[in-house]
């Protein structure tokens, strides 16, 4: 069964500092990986996704993530955080779409809450 681990429950960084949120997955084949962000009272917004190809993926709002198969990781990074980045971040895995027709279920991690201090 597929699973996602986000080892950091809560991270605090200063505005302007760099950020890395960790994500490890367990999946028997090539996964389809996502990062979503959830602000208070909001739904989930997709930041970026990895399907195949270049292992460094660029997303919205200046975020990027790197897929490392050998480490089963898909860590999210941002070089300089803004106060508006304070939110809950979720990593998710889905089955390789080449193997399954249609949109299969996403399995989410438990999330990392990001706090930004001035």
């Amino acid at each position: 069964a597929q699973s996602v681990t986000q080892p950091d429950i809560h991270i605090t960084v200063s505005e302007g500092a760099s950020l890395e949120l960790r994500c490890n997955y367990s999946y028997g084949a090539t996964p389809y990986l996502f990062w979503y962000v959830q602000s208070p009272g909001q739904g989930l917004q997709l930041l970026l996704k990895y399907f195949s190809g270049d292992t460094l993926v660029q997303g919205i709002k200046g975020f990027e993530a790197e897929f490392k198969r050998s480490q089963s990781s898909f860590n999210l990074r941002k070089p300089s955080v803004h106060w508006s980045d304070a939110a809950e971040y979720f990593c998710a895995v889905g089955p390789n779409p080449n193997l399954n027709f249609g949109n299969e279920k996403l399995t989410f991690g438990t999330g990392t809450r990001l706090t930004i201090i001035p």
Partner: protein
Amino acid sequence: DAGVTQSPTHLIKTRGQQVTLRCSPKSGHDTVSWYQQALGQGPQFIFQYYEEEERQRGNFPDRFSGHQFPNYSSELNVNALLLGDSALYLCASSQNGGPKETQYFGPGTRLLVL
């Protein structure tokens, strides 16, 4: 272009009651998935509807049921509510047939069971 909309935004019920939550997908989307997000947890997949049929189901009891209408909107029904059903219920829509199609999430319905 409206995104995914859900109603109501908040709901309070008592144990044993039944509840119906509603979701309208993003324009052009024909697939709807439902997720339950308990406090402090990530969303958990309940089920997915396509062509008015349940296509895939997560590890949820039969008390959780759904429906999809011809206009692709969907309902989530929960019977015999338990305290543990208190959660944020998220609806996500996507376009079937595209393996790389993104699931777009609505703002959710927060259900409190007393």
